[in-house]
């Protein structure tokens, strides 16, 4: 440490900052590079026979390096190379106007709206269930088994039924997708919040009793704030689950729009590169959503005096 950093501890010297960045991101970068290297090797191995057979069918002479080059830019590879996926992703994002049917931004927005609405519905439902369960032992016994049962049925089987039934009563488009998404994501929130609402220290509950606080006051001034760490832990799980729910819900609609639709049409027509680009879009979306929840959490935590 230099003398200037001793006298001014708030101002870090650039070398210290760089050091911290290196320390933080070096392991991540190493992992990413290693994965990309493995991916390239796998792309060569998996696409090799495909490319070689194509050369042989056309009866053109070829060398090993020709085949090698072919595995890197095949039109419909078994496993597209990383740069092909990234190109397709960048092209999908920037290559078209944002609302064009081939734009990844358009499809992401379609999925995002169902995800966010589903997440909000699921959070509302999950928290309400937790409140009911915490306030009544009878409800705990009668509701909890059903809540757990609801998650044992695979959503892939349920989604078409939901879409058909909701379609029959005139609900189409965004809402059915959001309901499937909410159906999946309310679960971790309900379970997390039951834990959170019952997490206050017994002494704190007794203190409220000595002040003869009403049960509403106990809820707002003690149970809610105590449940906040549990809330954010379950929201982070729930937001990714609701994205998965929204994507799955797009599959039985016949693939009109959304990331799910891109995945479906990609696999129908063997457009593996499109498929992978849609996967990348889903991953980016999920990371962004978790990031937003994390940011809100940090804001709330600092207001609640976390250290």
């Amino acid at each position, binding site marked *: 440490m230099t003398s200037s950093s001793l006298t001014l501890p708030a101002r870090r010297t650039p070398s210290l900052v760089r050091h911290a960045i290196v320390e933080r991101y070096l392991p991540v970068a190493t992992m990413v590079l290693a994965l990309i290297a493995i991916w390239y090797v796998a792309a060569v191995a998996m696409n090799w026979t495909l490319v070689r057979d194509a050369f042989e069918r056309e009866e053109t002479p070829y060398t090993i390096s020709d085949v090698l080059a072919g595995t890197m830019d095949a039109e419909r590879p078994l496993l597209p190379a990383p740069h092909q996926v990234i190109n397709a992703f960048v092209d999908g994002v920037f290559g078209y106007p944002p609302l064009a049917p081939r734009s990844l931004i358009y499809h992401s927005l379609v999925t995002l709206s169902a995800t966010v609405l589903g997440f909000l519905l699921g959070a509302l439902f999950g928290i309400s269930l937790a409140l009911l369960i915490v306030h009544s032992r009878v409800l705990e016994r009668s509701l909890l088994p059903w809540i757990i049962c609801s998650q044992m049925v695979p959503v892939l089987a349920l989604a078409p039924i939901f879409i058909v039934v909701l379609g029959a009563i005139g609900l189409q488009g965004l809402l059915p997708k959001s309901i499937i998404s909410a159906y999946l994501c309310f679960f971790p929130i309900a379970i997390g919040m039951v834990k959170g609402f019952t997490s206050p220290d017994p*002494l704190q509950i007794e203190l409220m009793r000595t*002040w003869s606080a009403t049960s509403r006051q106990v809820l707002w*001034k003690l149970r809610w704030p105590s449940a*906040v760490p549990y809330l954010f832990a379950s929201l982070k799980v729930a937001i990714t689950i609701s994205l998965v729910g929204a994507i799955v819900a797009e599959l039985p609609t016949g693939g009109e729009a959304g990331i799910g639709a891109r995945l479906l049409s990609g696999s129908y027509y063997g457009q593996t590169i499109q498929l992978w680009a849609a996967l990348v879009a889903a991953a980016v979306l999920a990371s962004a959503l978790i990031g937003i929840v994390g940011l809100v959490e940090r804001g709330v935590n600092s207001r609640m*005096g976390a250290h």
Partner: protein
Amino acid sequence: MSTEPASKRLVVEANAISLTFETADGRVDALSNVSLQIAEGEFVSFIGPSGCGKTTMLRVIADLQQPSSGTLSVNGMTAENARLARSYGYVFQAPALFPWRTIEKNLKLPLEIMGFSESEQKIRAERYLSMVNLKGFERKFPWQLSGGMQQRVSIARALSFDPAMLLMDEPFGALDEIVRDHLNEQLLQLWKSTEKTVLFVTHSIPEAVFLSTKIVVMSPRPGRIIDVIDCDFPVDRSLEIRETPEFLKIAQRVRNGLRAGHSYDE
């Protein structure tokens, strides 16, 4: 004390209080036939080994537990009504502050619950924080304070709504000797200036003798009172009093009481 306690109003009148628990190992007599009278303005210590029912007695008075039999009047009403009327402030062994609230907001919590006006909350938070010498810590969060400071906040919080009684359950039990001595002196000051009735549960003989006007010695299995010792040191006593023969005589009597309660046991 110069004034005669008997002439004052009684704030606690317990008659033949018993409390039994049914546990997996059978019946436990937490309290057996306990009768006790506490006058307004007294400082009463409950002392005895673990399981003697001293904490249970305090909890019964606070209506946190209900006796199996006997009659109890707190501040002239039933224990439940006294609790609903917010007749006492309770201080636990742990500060039990709310970690997401600043010190000031912790102090305001009972006031918010009881519906005090914003301005009154502010005035009281200021008054009681300075009473426990914590002015300037309003915006700090509990984790930024030492254990002793946190316990002072919880005492200020218990006093903030100006209850008739202060019930303290080993409030300094988790603190080290030096902090404890210091807080004992401060508590004595507080008692003198607020003229509250204090009920104080402790393990420590010197603490009990130093603070109290009345020491209730209790014994376990079944939990009962075996001696009540009056203790009248001058109000402006300091810690040095613990070296005087009078102090040692009372401490000896407490110790004898505790020993007698133990003799048939083990």
